[in-house]
């Protein structure tokens, strides 16, 4: 999961936020300090063999 800084109290705005051990990331998101920038990952395609022998 990647995060972007939204407020200068946490660091340089626009740069990636890398949480140290023990940091409550959810509280930072809820407080508007950072946002998650990770996209949902696509699931693997399921290949269906339709050839009938």
């Amino acid at each position, binding site marked *: 999961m990647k995060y972007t800084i939204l407020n200068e*109290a946490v660091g340089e705005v626009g740069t990636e936020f890398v949480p140290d*051990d*023990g*940091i409550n990331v*959810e*509280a930072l998101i*809820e*407080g508007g*300090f950072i946002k998650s920038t990770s996209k949902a990952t696509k699931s693997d395609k399921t290949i269906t063999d339709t050839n009938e022998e």
Partner: protein
Amino acid sequence: MASTSTFLSNAVVTINSVDLTGECSSANLTRTFDALESTNMSNTARTFVGGLENSSLVVDLYNSYAASQTYATLKSLVGTAVTVKIKPTSAATSATNPEHTLTGAFMGTLPLVVSSLGALDVCGGITFQGGVYSVATA
């Protein structure tokens, strides 16, 4: 006269990675260890050995409901363990400006409204208890 002295002027206080220096008026970090009595019949005075560390950081913060200020920082932290940091000045971390950290310190209370007529609202005595202490000098 002391050869060296420190007065607090621009200390840096960080709570859960948020720099709250601009809202902080007082900070006290104290390392404490449980004193376990080990006195025995051969002693003529009580003796103790160190037990678990139980350090704490106590801060006074001006209350602010503005975005990304005191309330926004602390509202989701009360009742949880967080990481808090403090160093004497805003200069680079060094042996003469060490950064002290409590990792996993418990925040048990959050005063929400502590107001007096005509005075700034101050959330005093916010305590972060316990956690693992470490210090960085570089």
